[in-house]
């Protein structure tokens, strides 16, 4: 053997490794991360939540803040129904329709009264929440999951609101309308089974 020392060191290295425990999903951190990632990994959910933020930005204050307030709250209610096993009809259709409808509302620059906007967003939020509630993984810490889930949902609305701020720059309205068209197309694709 030409390099006995190196061989010995490599052998010790190999036998002294420990299992990687960074992503076991256990405990507070695992439950929280699971809650954060769950809303982010469903593109049909993501586009709808961003659309809510965009529509809020189009409607302006107070809808700008009321819609992101209504959506997580009602979505949590829908999630609670799902967790408790209480059925809601046509959930998948409702989710797909939310992308189509909210996308069109953004693309067409519809300035609905605040209470109508809140009702529309609230109804769709129940579908989204219920789907999340029924698909919940057995998170190690459900309370941490709940907090992560709500924070991620709210953060997606904030992304939509931030994108909605484009209407303050020249021709930014076109970018927002284009985003609405993309969201509506995505919703239409989900609704017709193309995606």
């Amino acid at each position, binding site marked *: 053997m030409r390099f*006995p020392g190196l061989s*010995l060191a490599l052998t010790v290295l190999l036998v*002294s490794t420990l299992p990687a425990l960074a992503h076991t999903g256990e405990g507070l951190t695992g439950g929280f991360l699971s809650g954060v990632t769950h809303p982010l990994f469903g593109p049909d959910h993501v586009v709808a939540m961003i659309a809510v933020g965009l529509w809020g930005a189009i409607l302006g204050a107070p809808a700008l*803040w009321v819609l992101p307030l209504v959506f997580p709250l009602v979505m949590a209610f829908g999630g609670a129904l799902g967790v*408790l096993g209480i059925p809601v009809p046509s959930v998948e259709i409702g989710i797909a329709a939310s992308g189509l409808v909210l996308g069109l509302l953004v693309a067409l620059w519809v300035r609905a009264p605040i209470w109508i906007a809140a009702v529309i967003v609230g109804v769709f939020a129940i579908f989204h929440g219920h789907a999340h509630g029924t698909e919940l993984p057995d998170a190690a*810490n459900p*309370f941490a999951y709940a907090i992560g889930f*709500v924070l991620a949902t709210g953060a997606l609305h904030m992304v939509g609101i931030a994108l909605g701020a484009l209407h303050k720059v020249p021709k930014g309205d076109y970018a927002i309308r284009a985003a609405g068209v993309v969201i509506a197309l995505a919703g239409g694709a989900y609704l017709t089974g193309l995606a």
Partner: protein
Amino acid sequence: MRRLALGLALIPVPGLAQAHAFQTGADSYALFLQGIGAPWLMLPVALLLIGTGLFLGIWRTEAMLAFWPVQIVVLALVLGLGVFVPGVPDLALVVAALAIGGLGILALPLPRAAALGLGALALLLAGRYLLEDHAFGELPLPFMVGMAAGAASLVALPAGLVQATRERIGHPAVLIGWRALSSWVGAAAILMIAFALRPGV
């Protein structure tokens, strides 16, 4: 070569670093730090107290000035004598968090006694929950003091943030933003209630 081999072999087999592994009961400071962490890591407590801080900050910008004496008295009372009253289940805390989140959203102009009383009630619930099933005198004093500091910080930090942003920025959107955050406390509480009521849990 043999020396080099032994030297290299030593590198990958160190023991666990113990520099920051606080041993329970090792000293008072360690216990104090553990006590601070307790309310932050008990999520129903953290949610309720953060919601309370937001509620107070939304209620009035100078709310914490009025609430500090109440907070100190209530925490001393509940952590000192709380073991003599029945325990508080998870569900009670998250229902309280939902209620306080709702009050934060509504931003009602409550009378001073009502707002401070609600804050005190939240602290009473949280403090009793923190004591779990421990008997009187079982928890060391530094740990109890740490728990009080941790609980107080969970209320004071969000309330202070609300106050600072409202005073420094002043735009009406700031208050609406905090009310939206309060609604997230309510939303998390709704999900927690569902988890607590879920069959088989």
